[in-house]
């Protein structure tokens, strides 16, 4: 599904990723953990194709394609979805219109029939339940005036509607209280499927209490320095990042 090899990337002339390797199979959930500044969000943004993130070396193969050759929208058409760490507010652009345009752009590019208003509404109603999305948020401008928790919930709601093949959740847990974290996690869990791969980018272990990953990777200074199962996250929680960074460096 996703094969990242020797990935080097820089932001504003500063090298952030320094030879990252990662292989994810269909249906797997991988957690990428690491201290601040280790390159977690850079990885998420490189995968989604954000401007200003320059890949200087290495490759990313996604679903048999060279991901780095694709524009952000082409990645979305191909099933890549990024749940943003800081979802932007877009005044004047209606949340539900955006979603409908997104669904139909994806369907159109896959040669599928576009959804009409009735079909789309039925889809939205079904997915709203997953994240207990409040109906009035739907008809507001994208994220405008949403609380931090509502923004994150909206991201997962969009993910539910767009049904991506590869979802990257960038610090989705940050800024969530425990109730919101539960709701968001339940939403993500319900979207787990054998065809869908999920990358959870997180600083803290607590998200992984709710979403059990198949693999946990520790990112430090632009490289994955340790990989393991869910138990690795617990160990990190107990001993902190310093422990592992020092152990690996030794």
């Amino acid at each position, binding site marked *: 599904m996703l094969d990242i090899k020797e990935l080097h990337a820089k932001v504003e002339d500063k090298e952030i990723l320094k030879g990252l390797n990662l292989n994810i199979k269909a249906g797997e959930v991988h957690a990428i953990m690491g201290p601040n500044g280790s390159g977690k969000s850079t990885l998420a943004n490189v995968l989604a*194709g954000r401007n200003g993130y320059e890949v200087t070396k290495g490759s990313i193969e996604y679903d048999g394609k060279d991901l780095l050759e694709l524009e952000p929208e082409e990645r979305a058409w191909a099933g890549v979805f990024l749940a*943003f760490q800081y979802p*932007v507010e*877009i005044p*004047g*652009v209606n949340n539900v219109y*955006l979603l409908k345009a997104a669904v139909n752009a994806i369907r159109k590019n896959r040669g599928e029939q576009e959804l009409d208003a009735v079909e789309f509404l039925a889809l939205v109603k079904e997915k709203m339940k997953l994240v207990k999305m409040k109906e009035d948020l739907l008809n507001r401008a*994208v994220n405008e005036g949403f609380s931090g928790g509502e923004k994150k919930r909206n991201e997962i709601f969009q993910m539910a509607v767009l049904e991506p093949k590869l979802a990257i959740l960038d610090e989705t847990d940050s800024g969530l209280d425990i109730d919101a974290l539960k709701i968001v996690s339940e939403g993500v869990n319900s979207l787990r499927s054998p065809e869908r791969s999920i990358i959870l980018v997180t600083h803290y272990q607590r998200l992984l209490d709710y979403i059990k990953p198949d693999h946990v990777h520790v990112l430090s200074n632009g490289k994955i320095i340790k990989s393991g199962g869910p138990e690795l996250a617990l160990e990190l929680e107990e001993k902190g990042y310093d422990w592992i960074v020092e152990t690996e460096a030794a």
Partner: protein
Amino acid sequence: MNTDIQNYLNDFEQLGNDIKTDWFSKQRLSALSLFKETGFPSSRQENWKYTNTRPIAKETFSNTSTRQSVSISAEEIDAVRFQDLDCYELVFINGVYSREHSRIDGLAKGTVIDNMADALAKDNSKNNEILKKHLAQYADNKVSPFTALNTAFIQHGTYINVPKNTVIEKPINILYLSKESAKPFAAHPRNLIVMGEHSEATLIENYIGLDDANYFTNAVTEVSLAPSAIMKHYKIQQESLNAYHIGNLNVMQDKDSRFESNSISLGGSLVRNDIHGQLDAEGASIVMNGLYMTNDKQHVDNHTRVDHLKPNTHSSENYRGVLNGKSRAVFNGKVVVHPQAQKIEAHQNNANLLLSDNAEIDTKPELEIYADDVKCSHGATAGQLDQDMLFYLRSRAIDEGTARSLLTYAFADEVLKDISFTPVKNRLEYLIVGQLPDAKLIREFTNE
């Protein structure tokens, strides 16, 4: 003698005797002599610093209505009418009133809507009294030579008188339509709206070029609001891209009156809009919304001025511009708080979106405050499309072109969101989308 203005003086001489000898003739002559003295404004004048009127001055336009007449079919007019809007409507073709195409029957008793030329000519003592009291009282010939020129040539235009306690339910739609004629022409529409105590009306001034003709519209509108009168005013400027448009709106407001101005500028090669609100009694308030969208080599200048003459008056202003190509726009918003005008509130904002590296905006808020207990704010911004928003939309499968258009539309739409009159709002949204690339896609996106 300044040769630029000779043509205007000659045309004035050719006007019929009925115009030159009516009760207004003295004021015409003094306006004309003022124009003769000053000529066209020069960019050395602060008020015209960023707008060069040379292109208008150096062309020869015909100012006499008989030479301007062309015929326009009912179908052509229908194409630019509001769809399904029940309204009173006045139609002017190249500056000349068309009775045939206008519909102003069924007015409430005492309300007058008329062609200015007819109102001036009528021997109706009550009408004359109102005209004499208000005409050329609020638009100052000394402030702009264009106003003086208009005053000298007052003929066609819209005269509205709404008596006390009268609410005009249907909006009044004025279509100033222009079309190629034998000679490039100048039209000097003059509108006067007199609103009685507790009266209400909605007025829409449309300036529409039906083809790419070269002409000059020099419009002046005066509005007088008696205590507690309410007027919603819309100006939609869609002149030909080869036309010049100078528009001057002057509002005099009495106690607790409310004026809402919405000025949308889309057409014209060289455009100047002036709005002047005078809050002359406590409780008076004015709202000014504006949007200008420019492309290619268009030049659009918006100057506004609010005088807070008395305490407890309010003004708020929100102008937005979207500039593309090599176009240039000017925004100058002046607020003057006079001595003794305490407890006033004045807010102003101007935001600009520059879609091209070659577009230019000159924006200047000006506050002159001579009172100490006031609440004032102002802000001006100029920037490009927000990269984070653009990326967010693209990551949600929206292609780059559509995402850009959508964000541009959203930016412009901010000005329209407060428009309380839905048919105008819908029409404006439609027009604005039409200015964008991918218009069809954006319409699909925003309709439903």
